């Protein structure tokens, strides 16, 4: 048992921290600190900065641009990004389709797609969920029919995050409607510019536009864009979903939010005192901090066992990280609602060019939208109910 980082790890942390300090645009940092959304340009800008340094896809194999870091170094890196706060790498290319391509794709696909993910020349989105296939993803209906050297795709995806910016979408499609649910699914890479694709925005309850419906109407996809074997897509999808293990706890992001809450709670006043001095508020904040510390330790234990045993099969412990991580992210937004108090009410229009002075403190307008928006974290990526089912089955044997 040893809690402290080694000297080398500490030196690494300092190097990462110094790099972020010197290179992260203040505008991007401030937006993230206040819980605001970044534009596509801002995300690309930051990814390019990391790319130039060779840090845009650190966990990939070195031959595709990865960093050959230990799991602890990876962890330190993402903690430092979250603490800054700096944008974490866009997951759709980096954590999702990238590893699928370098693990199951052919050489041509690796050459074609991986470098363009690394510098974000291609923006990817994830086309898994459908109106009728959410938690029960394997019931998906989008059809792909082989015609010569093309697949013809018809159907609909939904909840597709940031599809409005995307150059490419990776999709689960049904190629064998006769086979048992999971066995007739393939993994297709589709150029968003292909005729027959329509993207329709879905507005979320916070007023933002981050999700979309994507419709496919006789979309012709070259057969060379099939990843791996036909009808093996479910295996690749399971690999993809289990690949993100540690990041989902978002410990670093919650830590950064808590630091920010403390700053703001020291500015807002209740009567003669400050919000931060209110014993009830302090107790609630401290409770969340303790939960977060416990989660960090749990995360480090998972990491350490991975470092020792190598990445193995999907680890049901990731369900623990997902459940607690999402609950804490949500608890943190509730604490901020408590800090902002009545100034949660005004709604500043999202449009650019809005230049009226803020109502109340200038950070207040992002607080309620962020509280609303963060309800999503216990829904997506396998809802918390589904995570509990996994624990009950896979760990408890029930």
């Amino acid at each position, binding site marked *: 048992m040893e809690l402290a980082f080694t000297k080398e790890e500490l030196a690494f942390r300092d190097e990462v921290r110094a790099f972020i300090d010197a290179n992260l645009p203040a505008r991007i940092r401030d937006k993230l600190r206040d819980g605001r959304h970044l534009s596509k340009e801002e995300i690309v800008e930051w990814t390019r900065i990391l790319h130039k340094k060779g840090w845009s896809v650190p966990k990939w194999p070195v031959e595709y641009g990865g960093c050959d870091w230990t799991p602890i170094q990876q962890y330190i890196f993402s903690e430092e990004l979250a603490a800054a706060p700096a944008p974490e790498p866009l997951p759709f290319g980096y954590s999702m389709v990238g590893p699928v391509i370098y693990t199951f794709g052919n050489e041509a696909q690796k050459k074609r797609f991986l470098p363009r993910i690394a510098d974000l020349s291609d923006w990817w989105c994830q086309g898994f*969920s459908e109106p*009728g296939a*959410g*938690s*029960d993803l394997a*019931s998906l209906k989008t059809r792909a029919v082989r015609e010569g050297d093309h697949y013809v795709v018809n159907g609909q995806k*939904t*909840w597709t995050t940031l599809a409005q910016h995307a150059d490419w979408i990776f999709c689960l499609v049904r190629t064998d409607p006769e086979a048992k649910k999971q066995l007739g699914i393939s993994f297709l890479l589709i150029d968003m510019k292909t005729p027959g694709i329509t993207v329709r925005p*879905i*507005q*979320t*309850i916070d*007023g933002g536009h981050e*999700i979309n419906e994507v419709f496919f109407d006789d979309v012709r996809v070259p057969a060379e864009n099939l990843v791996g074997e036909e009808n093996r897509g479910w295996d690749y999808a399971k690999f993809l979903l289990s690949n993100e293990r540690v990041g989902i706890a978002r410990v670093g992001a919650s830590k950064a939010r808590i630091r920010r809450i403390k700053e703001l709670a020291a500015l*807002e*006043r*209740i*009567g*003669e005192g400050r919000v931060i001095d*209110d014993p*009830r*508020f302090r107790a609630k904040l401290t409770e969340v901090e303790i939960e977060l510390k416990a989660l960090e330790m749990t995360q480090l234990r998972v990491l350490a066992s991975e470092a020792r045993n190598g990445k193995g099969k999907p680890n049901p412990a990731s369900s623990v990280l997902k459940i607690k991580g999402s609950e804490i992210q*949500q608890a943190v937004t*509730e604490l901020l*609602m*408590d800090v902002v*108090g*009545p*100034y*949660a*009410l*005004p*709604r*500043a*229009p999202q449009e650019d060019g809005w230049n*009226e002075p803020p*109502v*109340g403190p200038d950070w207040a307008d992002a607080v*309620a*939208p962020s*509280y*609303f928006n963060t*309800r*999503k974290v*216990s*829904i*997506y990526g396998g*809802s*918390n*109910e589904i995570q*509990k*089912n996994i624990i009950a089955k896979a760990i408890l044997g029930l």
Partner: protein
Amino acid sequence: MDFDLNEEQRLLKESVDRLLLDRYDFEARKRHMSGPEGWSPEIWESFAELGLLALPFSEEDGGFGGGGAEAMLVMESFGRALVVEPYFATVILGGGLMARAASAEQRARVLPGVIEGRTRLAFAHSERQSRYDLADVRATAVRDGEGWKLNGDKTLVLHGDCAQQLIVSARVAGGPRDEGGVGLFLVAADAPGLSRRGYATQDGMRAAEVALRDVRAEALGDPEGAMPIIRQVADEAVAALCAEAVGAMERAHELTIEYLKTRQQFGVHIGAFQALQHRGAEMFVALEQARSMAMLAAMMSRDPDPVERSRAVSGAKVQVDRSGRFIGQSAIQLHGGVGMTMEYAVGHYFKRLSMIEKTFGDIDHHLRLVSEAGGMAL
């Protein structure tokens, strides 16, 4: 003990519900909100025709003499439909203050317009530093001949942008948070020196920032002794919000249960999963607890003993806000992705419940008040 409605109350509830059923479904609400005011003047007219705008006023003032129970019935129905018209601002707050603070002459001058739907009122009370402390009033009023001159800035004035008459609290004497020395003043919204900036709120309602620079005003009642009335009306307001929240929770719960019965995953209705059945049941328990406390608040909100009145009302706000949080969050969760969308109703209930929680004192604030009062005195 009698928790049943009497004949008149039953008729009142039926007529409100019928109006909302006919003209205030979720799609109609969107249309009502899309107008220039952010709410519907036609619906407001219907409220006047139904007598809802006359509800709390005495019969000699042209009203119906309704009390806490009547306000509760109306607000609960409004909560179910997520009504965005300025009823709370005009009738509960403005009307409550006028009824209790204004002279007979002032009431005769203002209330007929309110009752007929021509005049809207708003209560300009909160200030940047005051948070939920009702006595923290720093806007000032000084004598100016027959009348008064007001200076200061008011914030988060609910529906303050569409009101023709503002009731402004201001300090005539005493330190910034003293109980004594605060008065209520009636000001026309177009009075020289008064400026307003209106904006939307997160739940689709409206509010305004109000700046007062040497604004001439008339006092409503004792210019140094308004705090007891402000506290009384604030308690009535909290009771009304509790009722509205119960209506919103009830509807959010219904929508969720309907969804559990229709949404199919894994070849079954998701309501077949026991985890979701239990969540639905817990929401029901939370709803019933909230309903009970909203009734307590309604019945106690006009109690002559201010200590017992506030104890009950603050206790209710804590319970209702807690239930509202749980039910609102659960409703979204059980809808999955659909719950996150603006297109679908359930998220709007969640948002309104979240904003009610932050209006006239949040959970921590009311918990503090009840604790300081020695608990619920069981």
